[in-house]
């Protein structure tokens, strides 16, 4: 043995108690709690997002690592990843999307039920990545609207978790009337989606 192995494990004491989540603001009373419908629905939705992994290439492997036990994605509420778009909330596009795959991705997005969110994981899904070529779609926002982009080639599981937490913020704060409003409709129209 040349030199003794050093394990760089520095245990940090917990600063705040993380076993309970934050309560939304509301009016408390004896046996009741009144708050905005928005907050409650947002709280429920954001802690139980069911993702649809659309893993195409290397970023898919990082997603597998994120779902595994070390960087657990299940602790954020997505214990069940579904592969059916009808049952999922979040479309996670991970990997290079070729121009031939673009219509397929759009079809999967169209089959998802409202409310739906999209996260583009990795450089290739965000902007084509290093593949600036005739066959690669330069970013999935050419075919579907994207909520969060996670850069990286591939992004570390911590980065994917960070993107996921931002999606949670978006879900928690989203207005219940957003999906029927004019702005959202015009956004979808710009992609050619009815």
């Amino acid at each position: 043995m040349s030199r003794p192995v050093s394990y760089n494990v520095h245990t940090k004491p917990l600063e705040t108690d993380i076993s309970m989540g934050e309560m939304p603001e509301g009016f408390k009373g004896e046996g009741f709690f009144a708050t905005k419908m928005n907050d409650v629905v947002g709280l429920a939705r954001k802690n139980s997002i069911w993702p649809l992994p659309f893993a195409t290439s290397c970023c898919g492997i990082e997603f597998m690592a994120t779902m595994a036990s070390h960087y657990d994605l299940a602790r954020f509420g997505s214990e069940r990843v579904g592969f059916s778009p009808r049952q999922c909330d979040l479309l996670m596009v991970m990997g290079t999307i070729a121009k031939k795959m673009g219509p397929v991705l759009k079809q999967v997005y169209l089959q998802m039920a409202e409310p739906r969110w999209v996260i583009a994981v990795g450089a290739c899904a965000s902007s084509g990545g290093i593949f600036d070529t005739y066959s690669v779609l330069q970013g999935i926002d050419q075919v579907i609207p994207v909520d969060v982009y996670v850069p990286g080639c591939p992004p570390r599981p911590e980065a994917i978790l960070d993107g996921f937490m931002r999606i949670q913020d978006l879900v928690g704060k989203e207005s219940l009337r957003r999906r029927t409003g004019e702005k959202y409709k015009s956004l979808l129209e710009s992609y050619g989606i009815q």
Partner: protein
Amino acid sequence: MELTNEIVKQKLIAKFGEQVSGFTEPYGMLTFEAPKEMNLKVLNFLYDDEELKFRFLTDLQAVHYPDEKGRELAVVYHLHNLGDNIRIRFKVFTDISTPDVYTATGLYASANWMERETYDFFGVNFVGHPNLKRILNVDEMDYFPMRKEFPLEDQTRIDKDDEMFGR
């Protein structure tokens, strides 16, 4: 008697005479060419002959030589004799303005998709192919990507922001 490159070469010259030419052996693999009208005859001979028995088509690709006028596109067949472990490379040259080559799908079923890929990327028209359409690129593409006739960057791109990419 063990099959060697010399024996293969002698048999080819005995059968086809002057029509097979350009015998070289880069890295020990016998390479020769023939006129494009003869490609099926040569392939059939290499398949049927009981001593040669080249019955495995390893690869079918094309190369674009933009400087050799009249012989720009080379269709390259890599054949393998599985019993004696001999490989051979057979090239067929064609003009880029009439890139018609007879298809090898009658002899090798694996040539089907390989010829579709060669058509997709080089534009070689395989005469007699059952389903010659693009296989890896988008169907609406009107150019052949692997030909060496394009500038390094697409001049008509609108989705890459010039200022962000340092142009």
